[in-house]
Protein backbone atom coordinates (compact mmCIF):
# COMPACT_ATOMS: atom_id res chain seq x y z
CA UNK A 1 0.00 0.00 0.00
CA UNK A 2 1.31 3.45 -0.78
CA UNK A 3 2.14 5.40 2.35
CA UNK A 4 0.16 8.55 2.84
CA UNK A 5 1.76 10.95 5.28
CA UNK A 6 0.34 14.41 5.88
CA UNK A 7 1.53 17.07 8.27
CA UNK A 8 -0.68 19.91 9.43
CA UNK A 9 1.47 22.89 10.30
CA UNK A 10 1.71 26.67 10.34
CA UNK A 11 4.58 28.55 8.74
CA UNK A 12 5.92 29.75 12.08
CA UNK A 13 5.18 27.31 14.87
CA UNK A 14 8.28 25.50 16.20
CA UNK A 15 6.32 22.38 17.13
CA UNK A 16 5.54 21.14 13.59
CA UNK A 17 9.14 22.01 12.74
CA UNK A 18 10.22 19.20 15.10
CA UNK A 19 8.23 16.79 12.96
CA UNK A 20 9.68 18.13 9.74
CA UNK A 21 13.20 17.63 11.08
CA UNK A 22 12.40 14.07 12.14
CA UNK A 23 10.86 13.19 8.80
CA UNK A 24 13.73 14.68 6.84
CA UNK A 25 16.24 12.88 9.05
CA UNK A 26 14.53 9.60 8.23
CA UNK A 27 13.85 10.41 4.59
CA UNK A 28 10.08 10.15 4.95
CA UNK A 29 8.01 11.72 2.16
CA UNK A 30 5.06 13.75 3.31
CA UNK A 31 2.49 16.28 2.21
CA UNK A 32 2.24 19.62 4.00
CA UNK A 33 -1.07 21.24 4.88
CA UNK A 34 -0.76 24.81 6.09
CA UNK A 35 -3.27 25.95 8.68
CA UNK A 36 -4.41 29.42 9.59
CA UNK A 37 -5.00 29.12 13.32
CA UNK A 38 -7.42 32.03 13.30
CA UNK A 39 -9.56 30.05 10.85
CA UNK A 40 -8.98 26.36 11.49
CA UNK A 41 -9.92 23.85 8.85
CA UNK A 42 -12.60 21.21 9.41
CA UNK A 43 -9.95 18.57 8.91
CA UNK A 44 -7.75 19.91 11.69
CA UNK A 45 -10.70 20.03 14.08
CA UNK A 46 -11.63 16.51 13.05
CA UNK A 47 -8.12 15.14 13.47
CA UNK A 48 -7.31 16.97 16.71
CA UNK A 49 -10.59 17.60 18.51
CA UNK A 50 -8.99 17.69 21.97
CA UNK A 51 -6.47 20.50 21.43
CA UNK A 52 -7.31 21.81 17.93
CA UNK A 53 -3.61 22.58 17.40
CA UNK A 54 -0.73 21.85 15.08
CA UNK A 55 1.19 19.70 14.48
CA UNK A 56 -1.00 16.78 13.53
CA UNK A 57 0.52 13.91 11.61
CA UNK A 58 -1.92 11.85 9.60
CA UNK A 59 -0.51 8.48 8.54
CA UNK A 60 -2.74 6.49 6.19
CA UNK A 61 -5.74 8.36 7.55
CA UNK A 62 -4.88 7.95 11.24
CA UNK A 63 -4.10 11.14 13.17
CA UNK A 64 -1.45 11.61 15.84
CA UNK A 65 -1.20 14.84 17.87
CA UNK A 66 1.29 16.37 20.32
CA UNK A 67 4.76 16.80 18.87
CA UNK A 68 6.69 14.60 21.32
CA UNK A 69 4.11 11.82 20.89
CA UNK A 70 4.42 12.16 17.11
CA UNK A 71 8.22 11.92 17.30
CA UNK A 72 8.01 8.62 19.18
CA UNK A 73 5.44 7.36 16.68
CA UNK A 74 7.77 8.22 13.80
CA UNK A 75 10.69 6.47 15.48
CA UNK A 76 8.62 3.32 16.09
CA UNK A 77 7.01 3.23 12.66
CA UNK A 78 9.94 4.11 10.41
CA UNK A 79 12.72 2.17 12.01
CA UNK A 80 15.46 3.14 9.57
CA UNK A 81 18.36 5.11 11.04
CA UNK A 82 18.88 7.54 12.50
CA UNK A 83 17.05 6.43 15.64
CA UNK A 84 15.59 9.46 17.33
CA UNK A 85 15.52 7.80 20.74
CA UNK A 86 18.52 5.81 22.04
CA UNK A 87 18.22 2.02 22.23
CA UNK A 88 19.24 1.76 25.87
CA UNK A 89 16.14 2.06 28.12
CA UNK A 90 17.91 4.27 30.66
CA UNK A 91 19.14 6.67 27.97
CA UNK A 92 15.63 6.69 26.52
CA UNK A 93 14.24 7.66 29.92
CA UNK A 94 16.79 10.50 30.10
CA UNK A 95 15.90 11.75 26.61
CA UNK A 96 12.18 11.71 27.49
CA UNK A 97 12.85 13.47 30.79
CA UNK A 98 14.76 16.33 29.16
CA UNK A 99 12.26 16.71 26.32
CA UNK A 100 9.46 16.98 28.89
CA UNK A 101 11.50 19.49 30.90
CA UNK A 102 11.79 21.58 27.74
CA UNK A 103 8.05 21.71 27.09
CA UNK A 104 6.81 21.95 30.67
CA UNK A 105 9.45 24.15 32.26
CA UNK A 106 11.70 25.86 29.72
CA UNK A 107 9.17 27.08 27.16
CA UNK A 108 6.61 28.80 29.42
CA UNK A 109 8.97 31.42 30.95
CA UNK A 110 10.34 32.26 27.49
CA UNK A 111 6.76 32.79 26.29
CA UNK A 112 6.14 34.92 29.39
CA UNK A 113 9.21 37.06 28.71
CA UNK A 114 7.79 37.73 25.25
CA UNK A 115 4.38 38.92 26.42
CA UNK A 116 5.10 40.77 29.66
CA UNK A 117 7.04 43.76 30.92
CA UNK A 118 8.30 45.21 34.19
CA UNK A 119 8.37 43.00 37.27
CA UNK A 120 6.48 40.14 35.61
CA UNK A 121 9.00 40.02 32.81
CA UNK A 122 11.90 40.18 35.28
CA UNK A 123 10.51 37.20 37.17
CA UNK A 124 10.05 35.21 33.95
CA UNK A 125 13.58 36.05 32.85
CA UNK A 126 14.97 34.93 36.20
CA UNK A 127 13.11 31.63 35.92
CA UNK A 128 14.42 31.21 32.38
CA UNK A 129 18.01 31.66 33.59
CA UNK A 130 17.46 29.01 36.27
CA UNK A 131 16.25 26.63 33.58
CA UNK A 132 19.22 27.45 31.39
CA UNK A 133 21.55 26.46 34.25
CA UNK A 134 19.88 23.03 34.36
CA UNK A 135 20.19 22.56 30.64
CA UNK A 136 23.81 23.73 30.73
CA UNK A 137 24.58 21.04 33.35
CA UNK A 138 23.02 18.37 31.18
CA UNK A 139 24.89 19.42 28.03
CA UNK A 140 28.34 19.57 29.67
CA UNK A 141 30.79 17.37 27.82
CA UNK A 142 28.28 16.49 25.11
CA UNK A 143 28.06 17.68 21.54
CA UNK A 144 24.33 17.02 21.40
CA UNK A 145 21.83 15.82 24.04
CA UNK A 146 21.89 12.56 22.12
CA UNK A 147 25.68 12.32 22.05
CA UNK A 148 27.44 12.55 18.69
CA UNK A 149 24.30 13.01 16.58
CA UNK A 150 21.05 14.88 17.09
CA UNK A 151 18.22 12.95 18.70
CA UNK A 152 14.91 13.28 20.51
CA UNK A 153 15.95 15.87 23.09
CA UNK A 154 17.88 17.95 20.55
CA UNK A 155 14.80 18.08 18.36
CA UNK A 156 12.76 19.14 21.41
CA UNK A 157 15.15 22.00 22.27
CA UNK A 158 15.79 22.89 18.62
CA UNK A 159 13.48 25.92 18.72
CA UNK A 160 16.13 27.64 20.86
CA UNK A 161 18.54 27.71 17.97
CA UNK A 162 16.53 30.34 16.11
CA UNK A 163 13.78 31.59 18.42
CA UNK A 164 16.00 32.68 21.31
CA UNK A 165 17.66 35.28 19.12
CA UNK A 166 14.29 36.30 17.64
CA UNK A 167 12.94 36.83 21.17
CA UNK A 168 16.07 38.79 22.05
CA UNK A 169 15.51 41.08 19.10
CA UNK A 170 11.83 41.58 19.95
CA UNK A 171 12.26 42.17 23.69
CA UNK A 172 15.72 43.73 23.81
CA UNK A 173 16.67 41.25 26.53
CA UNK A 174 19.51 38.71 26.57
CA UNK A 175 18.19 35.17 26.76
CA UNK A 176 21.49 33.38 26.55
CA UNK A 177 25.11 34.10 27.26
CA UNK A 178 28.22 32.46 25.80
CA UNK A 179 30.16 32.98 29.03
CA UNK A 180 27.51 31.82 31.48
CA UNK A 181 26.30 28.96 29.27
CA UNK A 182 29.20 27.73 27.14
CA UNK A 183 27.79 24.23 26.55
CA UNK A 184 24.44 25.65 25.41
CA UNK A 185 26.18 28.18 23.15
CA UNK A 186 28.22 25.43 21.51
CA UNK A 187 25.09 23.28 21.16
CA UNK A 188 23.13 26.14 19.57
CA UNK A 189 25.87 26.48 16.96
CA UNK A 190 26.29 22.73 16.36
CA UNK A 191 22.55 22.24 16.03
CA UNK A 192 22.17 25.17 13.62
CA UNK A 193 25.06 23.85 11.54
CA UNK A 194 23.26 20.59 10.73
CA UNK A 195 22.32 21.13 7.05
CA UNK A 196 18.71 20.04 7.26
CA UNK A 197 18.19 22.30 10.25
CA UNK A 198 19.73 25.28 8.49
CA UNK A 199 17.57 24.70 5.42
CA UNK A 200 14.25 24.59 7.22
CA UNK A 201 14.02 27.65 9.45
CA UNK A 202 11.01 29.87 8.82
CA UNK A 203 12.01 33.28 7.39
CA UNK A 204 13.60 35.24 10.24
CA UNK A 205 12.32 38.72 9.40
CA UNK A 206 8.79 37.40 9.18
CA UNK A 207 9.22 35.74 12.59
CA UNK A 208 10.51 38.94 14.17
CA UNK A 209 7.53 40.91 12.81
CA UNK A 210 5.09 38.25 13.94
CA UNK A 211 6.40 38.05 17.50
CA UNK A 212 6.73 41.82 17.70
CA UNK A 213 3.06 42.19 16.76
CA UNK A 214 2.09 39.42 19.17
CA UNK A 215 3.96 41.07 22.03
CA UNK A 216 2.31 44.44 21.36
CA UNK A 217 -1.13 42.87 21.19
CA UNK A 218 -0.68 40.99 24.47
CA UNK A 219 0.72 44.02 26.28
CA UNK A 220 -2.23 46.08 25.08
CA UNK A 221 -4.69 43.42 26.30
CA UNK A 222 -2.96 43.32 29.69
CA UNK A 223 -3.11 47.11 29.98
CA UNK A 224 -6.83 47.05 29.15
CA UNK A 225 -7.47 44.37 31.74
CA UNK A 226 -5.73 46.31 34.52
CA UNK A 227 -7.33 49.64 33.65
CA UNK A 228 -10.86 48.22 33.96
Amino acid at each position, binding site marked *: MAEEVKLFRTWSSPFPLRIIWAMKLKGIEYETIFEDLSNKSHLLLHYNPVYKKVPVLVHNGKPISESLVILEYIDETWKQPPLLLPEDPYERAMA*RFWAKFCDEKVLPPVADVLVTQGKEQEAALAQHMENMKRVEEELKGKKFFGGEAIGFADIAYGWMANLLSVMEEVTGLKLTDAEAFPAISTWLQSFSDVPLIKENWPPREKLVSKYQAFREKRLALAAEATSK
Partner: protein
Amino acid sequence: MNEKDELILLNSWASPFGARVRIAMAEKGINQYELREEDLFSMSPLLLKMNPVHRKVPVLIHNGKPICESMNIVQYIDEVAVFNGKPALLPPDPYSRSKARFWADFIDQKVYGTMRKITRNRGEEQVRAKEELIETLKVLERELGEKPYFGGEFGFVDIALVPFYSRFYAVETLGNFRIEAECPKLVAWARRCLLKETVSNSLPDPLKVYEWVLYVNDKFGIKQN
Protein backbone atom coordinates in the same frame (compact mmCIF):
# COMPACT_ATOMS: atom_id res chain seq x y z
CA MET B 1 16.09 -6.72 35.16
CA ASN B 2 16.68 -9.58 37.64
CA GLU B 3 16.72 -10.31 41.40
CA LYS B 4 20.26 -8.99 41.73
CA ASP B 5 19.17 -5.52 40.67
CA GLU B 6 18.87 -2.86 43.33
CA LEU B 7 15.56 -1.02 43.13
CA ILE B 8 14.55 1.83 45.40
CA LEU B 9 11.36 3.82 44.97
CA LEU B 10 11.31 7.20 46.66
CA ASN B 11 7.66 7.91 47.25
CA SER B 12 5.14 9.70 49.39
CA TRP B 13 2.10 7.67 50.45
CA ALA B 14 -0.44 10.28 49.31
CA SER B 15 1.15 10.94 45.93
CA PRO B 16 -0.96 9.86 42.96
CA PHE B 17 2.21 9.96 40.87
CA GLY B 18 3.97 7.53 43.17
CA ALA B 19 0.89 5.30 43.10
CA ARG B 20 1.21 5.07 39.30
CA VAL B 21 4.67 3.58 39.69
CA ARG B 22 3.55 1.20 42.46
CA ILE B 23 0.73 -0.10 40.26
CA ALA B 24 3.11 -0.51 37.32
CA MET B 25 5.66 -2.38 39.43
CA ALA B 26 2.96 -4.71 40.75
CA GLU B 27 1.55 -5.27 37.25
CA LYS B 28 5.01 -6.24 36.01
CA GLY B 29 5.52 -8.62 38.95
CA ILE B 30 8.30 -6.55 40.49
CA ASN B 31 7.91 -7.01 44.22
CA GLN B 32 11.52 -6.96 45.34
CA TYR B 33 12.14 -3.29 45.79
CA GLU B 34 12.66 -0.92 48.66
CA LEU B 35 9.86 1.56 49.12
CA ARG B 36 11.12 4.65 50.92
CA GLU B 37 8.70 7.18 52.30
CA GLU B 38 9.68 10.82 51.78
CA ASP B 39 8.47 13.71 53.89
CA LEU B 40 7.81 16.34 51.25
CA PHE B 41 8.26 19.10 53.81
CA SER B 42 11.68 17.73 54.74
CA MET B 43 13.19 15.94 51.76
CA SER B 44 15.98 13.43 52.20
CA PRO B 45 19.47 14.17 50.83
CA LEU B 46 18.99 11.16 48.56
CA LEU B 47 15.88 12.63 46.95
CA LEU B 48 17.58 15.98 46.44
CA LYS B 49 20.59 14.23 44.90
CA MET B 50 18.55 11.93 42.66
CA ASN B 51 16.04 14.53 41.46
CA PRO B 52 17.78 17.89 41.69
CA VAL B 53 15.77 19.35 38.80
CA HIS B 54 12.26 18.84 40.19
CA ARG B 55 12.83 17.75 43.83
CA LYS B 56 9.73 15.59 43.64
CA VAL B 57 8.60 12.03 44.09
CA PRO B 58 8.39 9.47 42.68
CA VAL B 59 12.00 8.64 41.81
CA LEU B 60 12.98 5.12 40.87
CA ILE B 61 16.63 4.35 41.56
CA HIS B 62 17.77 1.35 39.55
CA ASN B 63 21.26 0.15 40.45
CA GLY B 64 22.07 3.66 41.62
CA LYS B 65 20.70 5.45 38.54
CA PRO B 66 17.64 7.66 39.00
CA ILE B 67 14.61 7.84 36.73
CA CYS B 68 12.18 10.69 37.41
CA GLU B 69 8.67 11.68 36.29
CA SER B 70 6.01 9.03 36.93
CA MET B 71 4.92 8.07 33.41
CA ASN B 72 8.55 8.15 32.34
CA ILE B 73 9.28 5.62 35.10
CA VAL B 74 6.28 3.51 34.03
CA GLN B 75 7.59 3.40 30.44
CA TYR B 76 11.06 2.54 31.69
CA ILE B 77 9.74 -0.32 33.83
CA ASP B 78 7.72 -1.55 30.87
CA GLU B 79 10.84 -1.60 28.70
CA VAL B 80 13.27 -3.26 31.13
CA ALA B 81 11.01 -5.67 32.95
CA VAL B 82 10.04 -8.26 30.41
CA PHE B 83 8.93 -11.29 32.38
CA ASN B 84 7.07 -14.40 31.36
CA GLY B 85 3.36 -13.97 31.49
CA LYS B 86 3.41 -10.41 32.78
CA PRO B 87 1.57 -7.90 30.61
CA ALA B 88 3.06 -5.10 28.58
CA LEU B 89 1.73 -1.82 29.88
CA LEU B 90 1.89 -0.18 26.46
CA PRO B 91 0.26 -1.95 23.48
CA PRO B 92 2.56 -3.37 20.78
CA ASP B 93 1.59 -1.32 17.72
CA PRO B 94 2.91 2.23 17.26
CA TYR B 95 -0.49 3.84 16.62
CA SER B 96 -2.06 2.47 19.81
CA ARG B 97 1.09 3.45 21.70
CA SER B 98 0.79 7.00 20.39
CA LYS B 99 -2.79 7.17 21.61
CA ALA B 100 -1.78 5.86 25.04
CA ARG B 101 1.01 8.43 25.30
CA PHE B 102 -1.33 11.18 24.12
CA TRP B 103 -3.93 10.41 26.79
CA ALA B 104 -1.35 9.97 29.56
CA ASP B 105 0.03 13.39 28.66
CA PHE B 106 -3.51 14.85 28.61
CA ILE B 107 -4.11 13.47 32.10
CA ASP B 108 -0.76 14.92 33.25
CA GLN B 109 -1.71 18.36 31.96
CA LYS B 110 -5.32 18.53 33.02
CA VAL B 111 -6.14 16.56 36.15
CA TYR B 112 -3.87 17.23 39.13
CA GLY B 113 -3.55 20.98 38.76
CA THR B 114 -7.30 21.40 38.48
CA MET B 115 -7.95 19.19 41.51
CA ARG B 116 -5.50 21.27 43.49
CA LYS B 117 -7.26 24.46 42.45
CA ILE B 118 -10.50 22.99 43.82
CA THR B 119 -8.99 21.99 47.16
CA ARG B 120 -7.01 25.20 47.66
CA ASN B 121 -9.44 27.83 46.46
CA ARG B 122 -12.92 29.07 47.24
CA GLY B 123 -15.42 31.26 45.41
CA GLU B 124 -15.08 32.01 41.69
CA GLU B 125 -11.75 30.25 41.26
CA GLN B 126 -13.10 27.05 42.76
CA VAL B 127 -16.25 27.18 40.61
CA ARG B 128 -14.13 27.55 37.47
CA ALA B 129 -11.83 24.72 38.55
CA LYS B 130 -14.79 22.42 39.19
CA GLU B 131 -16.15 23.12 35.71
CA GLU B 132 -12.72 22.48 34.24
CA LEU B 133 -12.34 19.19 36.08
CA ILE B 134 -15.76 17.91 35.05
CA GLU B 135 -15.08 18.87 31.45
CA THR B 136 -11.75 17.05 31.55
CA LEU B 137 -13.28 13.93 33.11
CA LYS B 138 -16.07 13.97 30.51
CA VAL B 139 -13.50 14.07 27.71
CA LEU B 140 -11.83 11.06 29.31
CA GLU B 141 -15.17 9.33 29.74
CA ARG B 142 -15.86 9.80 26.02
CA GLU B 143 -12.47 8.36 25.18
CA LEU B 144 -13.14 5.35 27.39
CA GLY B 145 -16.45 4.74 25.64
CA GLU B 146 -17.75 1.22 26.15
CA LYS B 147 -14.34 -0.31 26.76
CA PRO B 148 -13.61 -1.84 30.17
CA TYR B 149 -10.24 -0.06 30.26
CA PHE B 150 -8.75 2.73 28.18
CA GLY B 151 -6.55 0.50 26.07
CA GLY B 152 -9.08 -2.33 25.96
CA GLU B 153 -6.94 -4.20 28.47
CA PHE B 154 -5.73 -2.57 31.69
CA GLY B 155 -2.60 -0.57 30.93
CA PHE B 156 -0.77 2.71 30.53
CA VAL B 157 -3.66 5.18 30.50
CA ASP B 158 -5.54 3.42 33.29
CA ILE B 159 -2.37 3.57 35.40
CA ALA B 160 -1.99 7.26 34.59
CA LEU B 161 -5.52 8.12 35.72
CA VAL B 162 -6.75 5.74 38.43
CA PRO B 163 -4.61 7.12 41.30
CA PHE B 164 -6.54 10.38 41.07
CA TYR B 165 -9.66 8.45 42.11
CA SER B 166 -8.21 8.42 45.63
CA ARG B 167 -8.48 12.22 45.56
CA PHE B 168 -12.11 12.33 44.42
CA TYR B 169 -13.41 12.28 48.00
CA ALA B 170 -11.19 15.22 49.03
CA VAL B 171 -12.10 17.21 45.94
CA GLU B 172 -15.83 16.46 46.24
CA THR B 173 -15.93 17.32 49.94
CA LEU B 174 -14.01 20.59 49.63
CA GLY B 175 -15.76 21.47 46.39
CA ASN B 176 -19.20 20.37 47.54
CA PHE B 177 -20.11 18.36 44.45
CA ARG B 178 -20.30 14.74 43.31
CA ILE B 179 -18.19 13.56 40.41
CA GLU B 180 -20.23 10.38 39.97
CA ALA B 181 -23.32 12.46 39.20
CA GLU B 182 -21.54 13.98 36.19
CA CYS B 183 -19.28 11.11 35.14
CA PRO B 184 -20.86 7.82 36.21
CA LYS B 185 -19.03 5.72 33.61
CA LEU B 186 -15.67 7.04 34.70
CA VAL B 187 -16.38 6.26 38.34
CA ALA B 188 -17.54 2.78 37.28
CA TRP B 189 -14.24 2.37 35.43
CA ALA B 190 -12.29 3.40 38.55
CA ARG B 191 -14.19 0.89 40.70
CA ARG B 192 -13.47 -1.78 38.08
CA CYS B 193 -9.76 -0.97 38.33
CA LEU B 194 -9.93 -1.21 42.12
CA LEU B 195 -11.06 -4.83 41.82
CA LYS B 196 -7.50 -5.55 40.70
CA GLU B 197 -5.19 -6.21 43.63
CA THR B 198 -2.31 -4.43 41.91
CA VAL B 199 -4.42 -1.26 42.04
CA SER B 200 -6.15 -1.63 45.42
CA ASN B 201 -2.83 -2.43 47.12
CA SER B 202 -1.21 0.65 45.63
CA LEU B 203 -3.79 3.34 46.24
CA PRO B 204 -4.06 5.27 49.51
CA ASP B 205 -7.29 5.45 51.51
CA PRO B 206 -9.41 8.37 50.18
CA LEU B 207 -10.32 9.46 53.71
CA LYS B 208 -6.66 9.62 54.70
CA VAL B 209 -5.95 11.56 51.51
CA TYR B 210 -8.68 14.03 52.49
CA GLU B 211 -7.10 14.50 55.93
CA TRP B 212 -3.72 14.94 54.26
CA VAL B 213 -5.10 17.62 51.91
CA LEU B 214 -6.53 19.46 54.94
CA TYR B 215 -3.17 19.18 56.68
CA VAL B 216 -1.29 20.56 53.68
CA ASN B 217 -3.82 23.38 53.25
CA ASP B 218 -3.32 24.25 56.88
CA LYS B 219 0.44 24.36 56.43
CA PHE B 220 0.00 26.76 53.53
CA GLY B 221 -2.38 28.88 55.57
CA ILE B 222 -5.41 28.07 53.45
CA LYS B 223 -8.63 28.43 55.39
CA GLN B 224 -11.26 25.68 55.35
CA ASN B 225 -14.61 27.42 55.31
